[in-house]
């Protein structure tokens, strides 16, 4: 039995404290969402559940917006973006990692420059492009600007560079072409990075608000974040905290469930991908 050193014990205590701190907002959200409607607002801040729990706020939240449509639209959007990104990111990463061409460094730096630019300044130019492509008020119009990802390209390029060149040379000796190289050598060895990137992509686009707001008009094409905003946006009036918490829980729940179900894999992916 190894005795914990004081330093290790302190580390554990701090980690535990941070974990508790991190989980408190989620706990409050779940507790608030399940509070009976009649509970006085004074008790709304409490972390102790009310008994018996009530589904009335969840029912109100569900009724206040078209959640089934929002879930479908958001899922289609994030998975569609991811599917295209995985193709473009993989090809671009290979080009930057292994191909030699004139101006390669300049192009790569130009690519990286995208990471520094703040999305809001692109709203009008991107919207004009989307309109010209005939994609206004379409989910495809929301998705299109994200079909390439500088972050994903950079991440995967670094991963590809760490794969020994000898593996590629051996495969080429066996007659492998470019696509076969990617499919049988680079991609299998890069699964942790691909999973890490997928997590970041899905999470960031699931949570995105402003760009979907700009592109989509039709209620039946709306996404979760804009639907949720109709609960939480507030300039002149007040909101029911229970219904707000319930609405937020409905938006966050799928990602939370996915994280809990696959958390070991998620953590492993981040560790191996160097994103720690």
């Amino acid at each position, binding site marked *: 039995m190894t005795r914990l050193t004081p330093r290790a014990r302190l580390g554990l205590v701090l980690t535990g404290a941070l974990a508790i701190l991190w989980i408190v907002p989620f706990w409050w959200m779940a507790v608030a969402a399940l509070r009976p409607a009649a509970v006085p607002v004074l008790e709304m801040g409490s972390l102790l559940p009310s008994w018996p729990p009530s589904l009335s706020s969840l029912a109100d939240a569900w009724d206040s917006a078209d959640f089934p449509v929002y879930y479908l639209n958001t899922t289609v959007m994030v998975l569609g973006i991811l599917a295209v990104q995985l193709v473009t990111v993989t090809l671009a990463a290979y080009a930057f990692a292994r191909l030699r061409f004139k101006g390669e460094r300049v192009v790569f730096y130009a690519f990286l420059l995208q990471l520094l630019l703040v999305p809001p300044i692109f709203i009008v130019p991107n919207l004009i492009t989307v309109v010209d492509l005939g994609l206004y008020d379409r989910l495809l119009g929301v998705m299109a600007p994200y079909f390439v990802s500088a972050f994903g390209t950079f991440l995967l390029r670094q991963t590809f560079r760490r794969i020994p060149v000898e593996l590629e040379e051996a495969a080429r000796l066996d007659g492998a072409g470019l696509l076969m190289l990617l499919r049988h050598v680079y991609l299998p060895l890069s699964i942790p990075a691909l999973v890490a990137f997928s997590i970041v992509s899905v999470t960031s686009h699931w949570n995105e608000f402003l760009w979907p707001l700009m592109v989509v008009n039709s209620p039946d094409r709306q996404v979760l974040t804009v639907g949720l905003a109709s609960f939480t*946006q507030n300039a*002149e009036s007040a909101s029911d905290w229970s219904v707000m918490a319930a609405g937020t829980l409905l938006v966050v729940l799928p990602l939370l469930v996915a994280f809990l179900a696959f958390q070991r894999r998620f953590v492993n992916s981040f560790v191996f991908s160097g994103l720690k």
Partner: protein
Amino acid sequence: MARLTSLLSAATVAACLALPASAGAATAIDFFFPVPVDGKLAKEMQRLVKLFNEEHPEIQVTPAYTGNYDETKIKAQAAAAAGKPPAVVLMSANFVYELALQDQILPLDPMIEADGTSKDAFMEDFWPALHKNAEFNGHVWAVPYHNSTPLLYYNTDHFQEVGLDPDQPPVTWQDWVDAAKKLTVRDGDQVERYGLTMSGSYDMLGWTMSALTMSNGGLYYNPDWGGEVYYDTPSMLGALTLWDDLIHKHKVTPEGVVDNKGVSSSFLAGQTSMVILSTGSLSFIRENMEGHYKVAFVPKNVRNAVAIGGASLVMFKGATEEQQQAGWTFANWLTTPENLGSWSRFTGYFAPRQSSYALPEMQQFLDENPDAAVALDQLRFAQPWFATYNTVAVRKALEDEVQAVLSGTKKPKEALEAAQANADAIMKPFVDSTALALPN
């Protein structure tokens, strides 16, 4: 040969007869609307649009929920710049001036006159206090849709508890401070109940500062020209010093920036006795308040005066003639006395048309809900909501400084000097191209 010719002629005639069917397709328009209150209103608005579409099969309105007031402006302007102008937008009433200035919205005069009336006759039914935010340079640019004034909401149970008459709310700032002191409950240095809480949220903060400054004799901004605001003035200095004193001297108001939800929640929870909120909160407070409350005018120092809030319908340039006509039909339908009355009862905003209040449903509603009548009474003292060149940035120039005062990091005088300087810098391009653009 003759038979073939006859056949071709018949086919041609049939083809011509078929044309009217395809030419009769509905005119599609977008309607952008913010919902500065909770989700039930977004749903109600969509229900109204569906009802309109059913009654007018020749028009197809797509209702698009567009965030808060500021986001709605961004989205509408971006859509117009991208070549997809929304035919109708429910726009914060004080953004109309700037959109007209930038030539982004249509003057409504031609459509009003095409209906066989004049713009003066058209506006006559709307409360006089609403005209300024809808008109500019002799034209009508907006149709008021839902409007509000700030109100003092107060807990009558707390009033009785400390010996204040619940039917005699504070009228002057002195009354207000005295009441707040009496109502504040302390446990040593700890405040258990604040006498008064006001919101520090963007938009609401600027609006509340308007009300306090106007009540202190000031104007806040030049209502006739978009290049001047009056931040560094005695009237606003007095208003901000009052708020600062309530926090740091009398200690009857919480320090820091309390957001809108915090204000309403603490009022409902009985943690504060008085709050300033919009008439737009009336329905929510009425439905959720456990104790007893009443509403009153915003207390005055020099005079009774508050700024109108709310939103109006505007039409963006760039739409086709058919879309403009469809948009006008829709805007008129939304703003019938009956529909405005219904929306008012549903939301708590007051109805912008005076004739809505002649309806029996409205009379009954006011009888049952006297608090709804207070905002109407306050209309006698209502001023237009501040509107300048680059309204949002000019407003935030003030709000950022006021938030610093509320947090105790700045004094009122230095804050307002900075706000004035920053606002003037923002308006400089407009000022240089108008008031300071002199003949050679």
